């Protein structure tokens, strides 16, 4: 009962947040950002196209004799906006004329691949560094990784990417510095190797960008755990150091780090946008970068909605998982 109620509460909160994001999106793009002038800006869309698009998306029709809709006129189109958005209709890209949904669908999995690899590496390596640093507190390893973590944390990711391209891509020419795969038809193992080769630098930047934060938090959390009574007890009864660490301290110290991992997911999504832009990696981030520079509002709006929805979903999963891992918070 308690568990079900907890999950229901979290799902409800996530849905409310989603509604808020959609309302914000509607306000920003349909009211503040005058959609009619956005449509007329594009040279690729003929007036007839624009009219069809307005009809299709349910954008407000200005009253005769006026250039734009009133706020109330716009607000009346909110149900139509909700309907189109929920059915996945985001209109067409002002730049290319393609459907926004198609553009996103063909790039989505590449971003997922980059994000997934970067996050997993950052978490695993960050946590391992944090554990070792805390366990050997004050050692050379601890001090150097702590300062290293702080420096990495202070580094703008985009700049780090540029630096690595300069070093590995241009100067040493070991790794390709842009794109997802080489032109030409490769297949099987060759293709996988080629993609891995292209992924190496962007994944490295994402990993380095977030390792520091995870290592610092894991270290602090484990240091706190080491003062706890149950760790002292385990030591007092003669459990070997290695086992105290593995079975008593680390499992409890990992929880706060997990919270951070989930909370910072929104930042990692942002990081992926930067990294993709710098490496011309054909994912959602590069799409965003191009949309900014061509003022392609339909694409920007869709990316904003989808990335927000992804982060909300991820947070919901985290909450449910967290409630399972740490039953104490279910009642809070």
């Amino acid at each position: 009962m308690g568990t079900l109620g907890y999950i229901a509460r979290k799902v409800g909160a996530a849905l409310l947040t989603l509604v808020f994001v959609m309302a914000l999106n509607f306000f920003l793009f349909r009211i503040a950002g005058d959609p009619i002038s956005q449509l007329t800006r594009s040279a690729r869309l003929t007036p007839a196209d624009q009219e069809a698009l307005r009809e299709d998306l349910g954008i407000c029709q200005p009253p005769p004799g006026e250039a734009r809709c009133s706020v109330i006129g716009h607000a009346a189109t909110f149900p139509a906006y909700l309907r189109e958005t929920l059915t996945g209709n985001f209109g067409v890209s002002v730049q290319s004329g393609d459907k926004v949904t198609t553009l996103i669908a063909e790039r989505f999995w590449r971003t997922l691949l980059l994000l997934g690899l970067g996050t997993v590496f950052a978490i695993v390596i960050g946590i391992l560094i944090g554990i070792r640093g805390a366990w050997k507190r004050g050692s050379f390893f601890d001090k150097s990784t702590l300062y290293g973590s702080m420096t990495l944390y202070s580094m703008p990711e985009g700049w780090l990417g540029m630096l690595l391209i300069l070093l590995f891509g241009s100067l040493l020419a070991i790794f390709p510095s842009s794109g997802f795969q080489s032109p030409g038809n490769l297949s099987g193992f060759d293709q996988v190797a080629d993609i891995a080769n292209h992924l190496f630098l962007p994944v490295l930047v994402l990993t380095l960008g977030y390792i520091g934060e995870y290592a610092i938090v894991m270290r602090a959390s484990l240091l706190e755990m080491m003062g706890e009574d149950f760790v002292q007890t385990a030591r007092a009864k003669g459990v070997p150091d290695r086992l105290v660490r593995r079975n008593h301290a680390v499992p409890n110290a990992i929880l706060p780090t997990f919270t951070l991992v989930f909370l910072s997911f929104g930042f990692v999504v942002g990081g992926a946008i930067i990294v993709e832009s710098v490496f011309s990696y054909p994912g959602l981030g590069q799409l965003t970068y191009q949309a900014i520079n061509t003022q392609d509002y339909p694409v920007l709006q869709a990316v904003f909605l989808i990335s927000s929805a992804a982060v909300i979903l991820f947070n919901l999963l985290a909450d449910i998982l967290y409630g399972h891992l740490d039953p104490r918070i279910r009642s809070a």
Partner: protein
Amino acid sequence: MDTSTTPTTEVLDEPRLPTKTPSARRITWLRRRRALAGYWRAYKRNKQGMIGLVLLLIIIALALLAPFLFDKAQIGVSTSTGERLAAPSSSNWLGTDKFGRDIVAMLAYGARISLLVGLAATIGTMAIGAVVGITAGYAGGKTDTFLNFLTNCFLVIPWIPLAIVLVALMGRGVWNIILVIAITSWAGTARLVRAQALTVKERTYVERARALGAGDWHLVSRHVLPNVFPVLFSNMVLAVSLAILSETTLALLGLGDPNTVSWGTMIGDSFEAGAIVAGYWWWIIPPGLCLIAVTLSFTMCGYALDEILNPKLRQR
């Protein structure tokens, strides 16, 4: 830290003698000065904090002295006299960019804008966060439920997509960028402040002040705010680094102010001009190193302050 006793009552209780009784205001100031001196002594013992502070002072000095050291014309797109994209030499220590602007002069002037963005955006962030957090924590009830919901929404929405959308709609002026950074980053502060306000509200001295007839404004400004401030302050120093990095991120995405020179726009310009492929390392590397220096110094100061101002951490 302890401002629980209202200074005016202290003095009123004393017999009115013609001797030089210090005024209530003076007593308060003396106490504050003693507290500050104590904090400074604790801060001086923190090695990391002192390194950060010295680094920060050097950067601030560079920013303040920029007009005395370098001719402002050298950082203007049309007024600079240098050769375009020149490699480092004796006349341009770190070379020039694609407009022939001297990189060293740009770094010095850029420090001003980067620091301005960092500080102003942080003040905005803290102001919104403090107002929302204190109102939610202090008022409670429906106000709290609503503000808490709003805070949670802004915590979840990924900041870069939101910031991109806002800057794209509002325009790329430096003050717009500052505003956008504040709008996208206040939620964490609000949550922290709300939690602190909730605990302060329940303390007995607040109850006592209320029993003595203190109004809401008095309670918030004299009791809640001073107790929330230490949390706010150490959070604030850390937020400056984040704000400066945020500006860089936006500049890299082509959303920097095209009319000002900051470390962020330098990196953004070099990226846009294809400096990586062309190998103009002198245009890319220096602003990044400056950014690391400034964010690292703020982070180090922030951690040190956190240890001193949050007694819970100090005991560890």
